[in-house]
């Protein structure tokens, strides 16, 4: 009933596959070692430790199953797109598993031959008349059908990608095409090859009909080897091209997931963990539609192309792409692999050499000096109408430091001391309000925040009225990590000295910086949307509901950056009627004003703003509300309808 058809369990046609498979395995092994070698010692230890943690192991397996095989994120995006990917991935996976199961079931001694389970039907004569045999035949055919349906969709997607929820798809490289077409060929060829065995031994609902359909071809026994050779060749071409194409994501993602779960972070843009990220990109092109820069044409600056240039080590193009990005993070939030696109860009930016770098060491001296006395400052302030001081440290560095160090130092500190005075008056919560540079350029925001604080009876002190130190995020985003750190230190000291328990921030950009890059123990960093929503809920701030229709824009750094979507909406709902934007929350479109981009031209920004406004006004709101001073100024320039700040809306609807 069941016996090996081929003496010695070998045939020449397995060679292309075998060589290809060995090549891929060696390449992956080499790649793995390279990535592990590039990790720092701590990272490596952290990674190994996480691999031993049972909870982590379960999470890894779960993530690998749902992300690599089922593609859950793509299902959420578009069911057809999800089906296409999971049918090919999961279907193929099942074909391989079933092949091995069959081998193990019928002839376990052949398990050591890696080609055997793949070409099992050729080597083994199995009868479909037993229950087990019929079941295997059926399952194999079933999953072959699943894969073929996926391939069918993939071919269809080449022509009508919109039907699968993608306006634009990736421009592939030549090798990508080679791999793509060989992948498409593998399964029809397998179908035909197994059609022959269906004639000799048996098959199921796929293989039997193909045998009958192509009976004239299938009847000729000489064609058997041709078919199996073709199948093996298609596999081989795919295997050989795999390491140099987007299909490298298949093995790499299995490494990426445990690395991410171990808590590794991107350090260098193309080394270690980042390299695993680069190779995990499947070039699916979801980021192309997501990118706000690619409105009118196919953006050549989307993350998928950045990954490609980083891999190719094309310095000039890499720099261009890395610097142009708005850092709005929409691509990473939609990416099925969750590639840290902004982190990769930041890592690249931080390696750029600049001729002139600001140095904020003097801030330390200012802070130290100012502890001594602040009477000199008061004197200086009263007696002068004109003063050459530096509110902005970026500007201050230009002016000579020497003689001015003392006076400026005292000025900055007067702030710390004034808040000390107020400490005694403040009740249980000590609110320190940091407006930031952008709020200083949009005075209506500061004014509204102060009105709201007054209306709710909160006692607060200003951290940066008059003299302010930047939060550091613009420097951080331009890759000047050391300079950013100096500002972080100076601000941290001021905040700690103030004895504040809440740091209130009205700028989404600063907020993210304080949240992510500051360690302010004992201080609750709150965005004003969180804080005022809390005050409204507690009844300390009373607003009435107006008849106006508002639409809320999620600032990138607040929404995707810090995950704050609900608080501003809850508060606006109480002040008026909230309508939906076309795309919002995770998919909100950057206003175009982002400080994240270092190279985007003004014209390009104008287009992005225009598109973003169109998206916001689909439901005909009376007013656009945003919670970031930069979005506010950007929209106000171009919007036909009223644009207001979150705090402004609350002030207008105060009871």
């Amino acid at each position, binding site marked *: 009933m069941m016996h090996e058809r081929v003496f010695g369990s070998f045939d020449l046609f397995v060679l292309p596959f075998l060589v290809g498979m060995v090549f891929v395995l060696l390449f992956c092994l080499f790649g793995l070692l390279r990535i592990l070698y590039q990790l720092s010692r701590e990272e490596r230890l952290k990674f190994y430790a996480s691999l031993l943690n049972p909870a982590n192991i379960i999470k890894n397996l779960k993530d690998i199953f749902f992300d690599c095989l089922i593609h859950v994120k793509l299902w959420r995006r578009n069911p057809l797109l999800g089906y296409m990917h999971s049918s090919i991935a999961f279907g193929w996976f099942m074909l391989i598993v079933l092949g091995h199961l069959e081998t193990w079931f019928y002839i376990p001694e052949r398990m050591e031959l890696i080609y055997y389970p793949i070409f099992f039907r050729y080597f083994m004569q199995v009868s479909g008349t037993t229950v087990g045999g019929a079941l295997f035949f059926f399952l194999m055919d079933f999953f072959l059908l699943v894969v073929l349906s996926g391939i069918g969709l993939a071919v269809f997607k080449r022509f009508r990608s919109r039907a699968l929820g993608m306006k634009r798809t990736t421009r592939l490289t030549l090798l990508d095409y080679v791999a793509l077409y060989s992948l498409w060929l593998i399964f029809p060829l397998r179908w035909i090859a197994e059609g022959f065995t269906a004639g000799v031994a048996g098959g199921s609902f796929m293989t039997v009909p193909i045998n009958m359909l192509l009976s004239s071809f299938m009847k000729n026994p000489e064609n058997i080897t041709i078919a199996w050779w073709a199948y093996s060749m298609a596999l081989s071409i795919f295997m050989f091209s795999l390491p140099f194409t987007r299909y490298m994501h298949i093995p790499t993602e299995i490494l990426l997931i445990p690395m991410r779960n171990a808590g590794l972070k991107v350090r260098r843009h193309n080394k270690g963990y980042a390299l695993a990220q680069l190779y995990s990109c499947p070039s699916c092109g979801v980021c192309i539609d997501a990118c706000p820069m690619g409105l009118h044409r196919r953006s050549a600056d989307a993350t998928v192309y950045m990954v490609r240039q980083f891999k190719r080590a094309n310095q000039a193009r890499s720099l261009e792409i890395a610097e142009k990005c708005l850092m709005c993070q929409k691509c990473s939030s939609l990416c099925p692999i969750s590639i840290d696109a902004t982190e990769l860009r930041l890592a690249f930016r931080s390696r750029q050499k600049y001729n002139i770098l600001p140095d904020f060491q003097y801030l330390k001296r200012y802070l130290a000096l100012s502890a001594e006395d602040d009477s000199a400052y008061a004197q200086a302030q009263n007696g002068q*109408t*004109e*003063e*050459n*001081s*530096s*509110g*902005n440290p970026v*500007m*201050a560095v*230009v*002016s000579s430091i020497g003689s001015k160090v003392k006076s400026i130092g005292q000025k900055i500190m007067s702030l710390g001391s004034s808040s000390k005075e107020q400490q005694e008056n403040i009740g249980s919560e000590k609110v320190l309000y940091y407006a930031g540079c952008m709020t*200083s*350029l*949009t*005075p*209506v925001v*500061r*004014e509204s925040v102060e009105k709201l604080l007054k209306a709710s009876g909160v006692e607060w002190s200003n951290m940066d*009225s*008059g003299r302010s130190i930047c939060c550091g995020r613009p420097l951080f985003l331009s890759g000047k990590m050391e300079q950013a750190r100096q500002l972080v230190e100076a601000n941290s000291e001021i905040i700690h000295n103030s004895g504040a328990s809440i740091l209130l921030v009205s700028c989404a950009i600063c907020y993210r910086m304080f949240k992510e890059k500051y360690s302010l123990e004992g201080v609750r960093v709150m965005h004003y949307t969180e804080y005022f929503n809390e005050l409204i809920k507690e009844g300390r701030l009373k607003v009435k509901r107006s008849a106006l229709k508002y639409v809320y824009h999620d600032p990138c750094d607040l929404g995707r950056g810090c995950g704050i979507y609900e608080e501003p909406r809850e508060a606006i709902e109480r002040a008026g009627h909230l309508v939906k934007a076309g795309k919002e929350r995770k998919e909100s479109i950057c206003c175009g004003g982002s400080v994240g981009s270092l190279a985007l031209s*003004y014209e390009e920004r104008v287009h992005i703003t225009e598109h973003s406004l169109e998206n916001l006004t689909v439901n005909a709101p009376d007013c656009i509300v945003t919670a970031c001073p930069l979005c506010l*100024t950007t929209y*106000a*320039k*171009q919007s036909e309808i009223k644009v207001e700040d979150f705090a402004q809306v609350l002030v207008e609807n105060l009871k």
Partner: protein
Amino acid sequence: MTKNVVVIGGGASGIEASRRLRDLGYSPVLVEKEDHLGGHLASWNRLFPQMIPAKDILKSLTSDMKGIEVFLNTEVISINRLKDSYVVKFSNGLSAQVKAILITTGFTLFPAQKKQEYGYGIYDRVITNADLEAWFNGNKDKRVTDPQVIGFVHCVGSRDEKAGNRQCSKVCCATAVKQAIEIKEKFPDAVVYCFYMDLRMFGRGYEDMYLKAQKDYGIRFLRGRVSEVSEDINGRLVVKADDTLLGKPVKISMDLLVLMSGMIAPESNMELSKMLKVLPGEDGFFSPANAISNPTLSNRDGVFFAGAATGPKTMPETLSEGRAAALEIDSYLKRVGD
């Protein structure tokens, strides 16, 4: 056939062109959307560099309006083109069939509140050049009360791509110098600053006015842009700017800040251009067919321009163009045969 010509916009060039057309024997219809003639001239106080009262100029312009049909509070609703003439419908219910239309729609001032960092409409002591002229004209303004330190910010909304206007408004530099002198005359003890990018003193006598402002009036000219304006506890303004000559940032406390709003094209230009099928330029102002040889000709037969409708201009330029347009219309109508 009537010998009517429709003139859209009752500012200086519209009035001047209408008068000249009348003198040439036509019956112009002058349409003005406001309730008075004169446009911006009517709200200005004195004109540089001779400091001639605007009132006098407007008075002499409007002294003899006989033979001119003036429609106040009226706008153009539609314009239909016939074979060789236009039917213009007005919001007052009347209409006219004419062979020539003159566009003298002028400019509007850039809304200074769009540059929020300067705090117009937010802080109590920030005003615009137009507000200051109104105050010179005797209108009360709480914001101007015995200022000790006064600042003028040049180029507010002009030469500012981020504000959507790349063009230079031509007259604000001279206007700022003029206003700085005038306010110094009113408050001799005040310290007056001008924050400028560069000073475009192109006309005869302008440079003299600038030198006089420095020598005789002690006005301090500071090259650099204002970065931000805030208010201190006492309600005084704190102005931060960059002194690019000294290479240093400065911070000055002030009692009054005057924003030199630039000239931008009126929004109604878009409507009008659709009706007439003459395309405005990127900046919203109308583009003459040949800006050098004859700036009053459009690319459409029978449609003419004069004054600031084709871009920022000084008062003498505007008036000359009004006259030139009248002559051009006359020769056009004679050519096509009225």
